[in-house]
Each structure stands twice: as structure tokens, then as C-alpha cells.
């Protein structure tokens, strides 16, 4: 269960922020965050994994209160519990496909790189259609293949929380559908809670829940634009 209570977050530089009085997402659910660019979708994703820290309020994941964790503990939470897929893939071009998938293990000594892990990489790559591409350079891959590598990287740690920030923004319709199918399929296999930020309204029917940032009153989220926060009532699913 992901729980947010009385959360208020505001950027220092422009005063923009979010205010969420209450949000409860059960484990394994899929949530679409929709709305125009700059409306706060990425901010919410960052808050959910501890990249951004709220000014007030609480975020709990499976009972762990993120807001009470220090920086190191939040990083440990991210690497062990969350997997992130980015719009621009954010792959390291100097690593091959296999090494990109293993990046969380290469960056964090708390994750042990074992034979089992390598086997998992092969299986995961196989399931994502990357089985024959493991030793390829990133430069040699198509857009769709790159995004699949990014998804594999997010899934390799078996995260309970899968976050995708506009993962289909740069893809054509066919590839977009493939990628979304894959995300749902893998989230279901790993029983992960999926949060996906998107401005593509054609996808929202597939999600268990939609938080529309363009209708803040309905979603229980208030956008702060250099104004005092006015918490909105609780929203139950």
C-alpha cells in the first residue's frame, strides 16, 4: 500500500508545488498520472521514491515512512524497492545492453552481482525480446529496443514500486503499445505497483486508477502556484 497524508511540497525557485491531503493506492495497482507538461506528474513520482522530500506530510510505502528516512536510507529504498523508466531512456551509451540492465548492481555495492543475477538478466532480456541483443552497444539499438532496455533495468531488482515517467513520449504508436503492454505484463509478473506519468489519454483506460492533474479538485491533488495551499478532501478509490 502506498499512502500519502497531508503532503505539501513546494519548489524553492518558483514556488510551484503540490498539495495532497490523502491518497491510498493498494499494492499491485496501476495508476496513470495524466495532465499537461509541467503540471506536477514528475514531481509526484520523485516524491514517491524519495528523490524529492515534502515540506510537510507523510509518504508511506508498505508501512515504511519515507519522510523519516535520511538521504542514504532513501537511496537504499530507491535501489531496493523502486524501478524507474524515463522518457529519454537515460541509458549509458558506453555500456552494452547487459551492463545497462545491470546498472543498479554496478552502482550499489549492497546489491550483490551473482550468477543468479546474470541468469535473471538473460531471462528478463528474453522476455522483453532483447535476448540476442545483450552484448550490443546502445548506439546500435532502435528507439523501441532502447526503451525495453530501460524497462529491463527498472525491473532487474524486482521492485515493488515501478515508476514510469512518460515512457512512450518519443515512440510511434505501434512501439508505444508494445512498451505499455510490456510494462503492464512485467508489473503483473512482479506484482509491482505501477505509477505511470503520461499525457496520452488513449492509454488511461488500461489503468486501475487515473489521477488527472488537469482536474485537481477531482483527483485530490491541489497544484500550488505561488498561492497558499488549500487541501482538498480525501479521495478514496
Amino acid at each position: 500500500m502506498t499512502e500519502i497524508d497531508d503532503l505539501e511540497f513546494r519548489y524553492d525557485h518558483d514556488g510551484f508545488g503540490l498539495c495532497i491531503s490523502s491518497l491510498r493506492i493498494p499494492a499491485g495497482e496501476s495508476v496513470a498520472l495524466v495532465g499537461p507538461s509541467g503540471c506536477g506528474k514528475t514531481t509526484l513520482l520523485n516524491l514517491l521514491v524519495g528523490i524529492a522530500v515534502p515540506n510537510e506530510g507523510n509518504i508511506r510505502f508498505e508501512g515504511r515512512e519515507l519522510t523519516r528516512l535520511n538521504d542514504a536510507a532513501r537511496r537504499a529504498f530507491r535501489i531496493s524497492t523502486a524501478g524507474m523508466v524515463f522518457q529519454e531512456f537515460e541509458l549509458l551509451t558506453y555500456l552494452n545492453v547487459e551492463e545497462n540492465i545491470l546498472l543498479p548492481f554496478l552502482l550499489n555495492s549492497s546489491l550483490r552481482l551473482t550468477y543468479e543475477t546474470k541468469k535473471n538478466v538473460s531471462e528478463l532480456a528474453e522476455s522483453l525480446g532483447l535476448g540476442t541483443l545483450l552484448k550490443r552497444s546502445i548506439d546500435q539499438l532502435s528507439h523501441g529496443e532502447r526503451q525495453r532496455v530501460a524497462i529491463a533495468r527498472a525491473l532487474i531488482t524486482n521492485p515493488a514500486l515501478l515508476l514510469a515517467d512518460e515512457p512512450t513520449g518519443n515512440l510511434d504508436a505501434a512501439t508505444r503499445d508494445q512498451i505499455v503492454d510490456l510494462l503492464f505484463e512485467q508489473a503483473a509478473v512482479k506484482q509491482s505497483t505501477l505509477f505511470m506519468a503520461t499525457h496520452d489519454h488513449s492509454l488511461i483506460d488500461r489503468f486501475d486508477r487515473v489521477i488527472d492533474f488537469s482536474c485537481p479538485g477531482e483527483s485530490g491533488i491541489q497544484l500550488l502556484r505561488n498561492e497558499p495551499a488549500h487541501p482538498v478532501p480525501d479521495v478514496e478509490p
Partner: protein
Amino acid sequence: MNGTFLLARRHLWHHRWRSAVLVACLTLTILLPIGLRIFAAGFESRLTTRAKSTPLVVGAAGSEFDLALHSLYFRTQPSRDTTISEANRISNSGLAQAIPLFVRFKAEDSPIVGTTADYLSFRNLRVAKGRTWKRLGDCLIGSNVATRLHLVPGDGLMTEPEDVFDLEGSLPLKMQVSGVLAESSSPDDNAVYVDMDTAWIIAGIGHGHASSKKLSDSDGTTDGADLSESDTFVNDPLIAPYTEITAENASSFHFHGDRNSFPVTAILAIPHDEESETLLMGRYLADDDPAQIIRPLEVIDELREIVIRIRQFLEATFVAMTCVTMALLGLFIVLSVQLRQRDFATMFRIGCNRFVVLRLVGCELLILFVLSGLVAAFVIFGLAVAIPSFSFPL
């Protein structure tokens, strides 16, 4: 750490040309000062070792440096020669053993050293192949000369004229290699040794030709080994002198003039004891003496002082160069980190420690420095093995 090392390795390999340029710059920065130090240490050591083993040198008055370098390394040419009578004078004084040297000509770029058999025993030079010189025209060659010219005992070796444009100068003489000296890791390995008579024949003071007739011999024949100042010859100027000394023509070789006035370029003087050394030095104190005596070690020490000053100057230059290289490397790292901000942002979002960036850059620098150190060591080792004279240019 293994993961960071892999990332560093992969990043450097991905930008391999950039990395190669950095390694080349760092290698030069490491190689030049260390190479200079090794080079200078070897240079100074060998310079003094050779000088230490040579107590005194006598030669014509002039530059002390020229005389020292000439007698120790067969390098520079003294402005004037002295005579063999000077060597006889030293020997007859009973104060020192005199070993004459006449080094003016070359054979295939190697100096031809005219001397006596005493020189070989003085320098502990051993004949590794063949035998020492016995006949006029025989030569012993240093090990490097034998290797470089692929010569073995029995082969011929031509001398080079002193000046190819001097039509009245001496003609080239074909010498016969009688033996090859064992390697001594000294300038002796690069020289060709002949006895004094052969050296003077090369210089044109003695020669032989078909129509030579020794008037003092009743039967008209002579033996080259029995040449004396009193012998008189008549020559046919239309017949060219021999350019090779063989068993058949050796008897026709003869010298002109007073043998006491025959030139030597330097005389190694080995005093019997300290008192003899002091007494011998005292004999050359007069300002108008046409000869001079030097202690090579003192002269070489002066030379070493100059080498040390040059080395200090170069070291200061290298320190400045190292500072500039390090500053540029620092700038390069800062720019590289800025260019990689997006990569690092991704790493942070995934959950990596902020120190990973430091570790990553540190690892990359470590790899670059280790690689540069290895390349520098390899180059120094390679140069020392491939070019033995790298540590000893004299």
C-alpha cells in the same frame, strides 16, 4: 568498487582516442623527468667510472675537456698532437707507465685507436674471438663494432680518409680483423684497435709500394717489422702505395722521418704510487710547456657540474610542465563531469551514492595514471634494452 571500476573502464574504452591522448600526455609527463634522472644518473656514473680508472692523461697543451673526452671516450679531437717521445720520456722517468694513444681516423664510423698491448691489459679488455694483433695491418674490434658490421676474425675493414677532399691525404687502408674483444659496456666496445705502427701507416706516415727499395739492404728486401729510422728507400712516384698489408707486401712498408717525432694524440700515464703521481704532475707545471697533464676525474667532475646544472634546469622545466599538464587534466575532468551530468543524474535517480561520481572519476584517473606509468616503464625499459647506449651516449 568492481562495478565502479567496470564503469570507469568502459567509459575510457568508449572514448578510447581521447583516453589515448590523455595517456600519451601523462606518459610524457612521467617519462621525461624519470627518464632524464635515469639517463643523467647512468651518464654521470659511467662518466666518473671511466675517469676514476684513468689516473693521469698527458697531451698537447690546450683544452682539458677535449683531452679528457678524447682519451677516455675517443670523442673530441685535441687541437694539437704530442709526440711518442713524450710517452718515452714518461716511461724513462720511472714514475709511471705510459700508454700512447693515436686516435684520429675512423673505420665505418668507429674510431681507430692506435695503442700498445698495454692498453688492453690496463682496461681489462679480453679477446673473445680470434687473437690480438700480430702483423702490421691487423686490428682488434670492439664487440659492438663486430655486431654492427657483422665482422668476424679474418674479415677486412677499410679505414676512412680523414678528409675526402684532401687529395694529398692518406689513402684508405684495408685492415684485417684479427680478433673481437669481449663486451666491456664501455666506449671500448665501439672502437677498433691497431698497434701504433699500423695507426701511423693509416695516417700516411708510413707506407709501402712495389718499387720501394731499401738502399741499406744489400739484397734489396726488407721486413716491415725491422723498420728503423736509418733505413733509406727510393720510391717511384708513379706507382701508388699499397692499400692493404699482406704477407707478400708487408716487407715493403716503411716510415719516413724521425720516429721520436711521430704523433700521438694522448698518453695515459699510470703512476707507480702517489709520490710518483705528484712528481710527474710537477713536471708539467711550467706555463710554456707544450704538453699538459690532467687528472681526468677532476676534469670530468667539472663537466659533471655542468651536466647537473643542465639537469636541474630541465627538472625545473619539467615541474612547470607537470603543473600545466595537471591543470589541464583538472580542467578536462571538470568539463568531462559537466558533459556527463545527465549520466550522473540518472545514477542518482536510480539510487546511487553521490560519492559514486567521485569514485568513478577517481577510478578513471587511477586507470589513466597506471596505464601511463606502465607505458612509461615499458618505454624506459625498451629503450634501455634496445639501445644500450641510451644510458650512455658518449
